[in-house]
């Protein structure tokens, strides 16, 4: 089970209304390499991963949900005071007529989230390699977001998130090595 903790993992400061930036950030909300995809992927892979990796998938999945909440906070605050005209100018006219000021699990191009973005292969090495790739793709996305954004407060939070992808990737790589060591271990039954 999960217990809600009423705080963000890292502070999110939003000073200006900027629906254009919010649109870009949706890539990490409902996009293929976004936080929702990551959280759901790891949580679902836990059941068939070797015991020594279950804790890692559980904790990283949980952290991804905390990142999802940070991205949601950014998108919500960047758009909450935007007029329909501002939403339209930012390319969020279609989003506005369907969702108003609500958030939705779309990517930056407005394509809704699909479970087809993620996989669970039931093969530990295949799953962990996918997880490493997912972290690297998310890291790259955060880099492009930082490059395209001129908001110093948002960029501070994005840099934190980018660094977390690095740490997760490193832990997944170590998990792969742990499994490889088991493979070559000579066990006499």
């Amino acid at each position: 089970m999960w217990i809600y903790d009423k705080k963000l993992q890292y502070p999110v400061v939003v000073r200006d209304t900027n629906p254009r930036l919010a649109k870009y950030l949706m890539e990490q909300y409902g996009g293929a390499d976004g936080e929702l995809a990551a959280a759901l992927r790891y949580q679902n892979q836990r059941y068939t991963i070797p015991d020594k990796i279950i804790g890692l998938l559980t904790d990283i999945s949980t952290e991804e949900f905390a990142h999802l909440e940070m991205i949601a906070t950014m998108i919500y605050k960047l758009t909450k005071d935007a007029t329909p005209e501002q939403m339209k100018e930012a390319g969020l006219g279609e989003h506005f007529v369907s969702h108003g000021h609500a958030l939705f699990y779309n990517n930056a191009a407005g394509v809704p989230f699909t479970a087809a973005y993620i996989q669970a292969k039931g093969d530990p090495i295949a799953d962990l390699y996918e997880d490493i790739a997912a972290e690297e793709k998310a890291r790259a996305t955060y880099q492009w977001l930082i490059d395209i954004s001129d908001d110093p407060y948002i960029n501070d939070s994005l840099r934190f998130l980018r660094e977390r992808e690095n740490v997760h990737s490193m832990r997944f790589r170590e998990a792969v090595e742990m499994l490889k060591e088991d493979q070559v271990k000579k066990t006499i039954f």
Partner: protein
Amino acid sequence: MSEEQRKLMHELQIADFNVIEWDLYMHTHPDDLEGCQKLYEKTTYAKKIRKHYEALYGPLTNLTPRPCDQASCTPWPWQV
């Protein structure tokens, strides 16, 4: 949110982050005794800060008892 509350919240965010980070590390370094000790210290410290915050501003999770006449003084994170 007052400046004092924001500061203490920030301190809790840092303390909890240390726990998360050492937890992840220990999953792939289960034999690291120094890391295990660090995790224990960080968890103990985070618990202390949380207790302090919740005593002043109310519960952050449903697992902390809340007196019926006390409202939660922590805003939703996206309303700060």
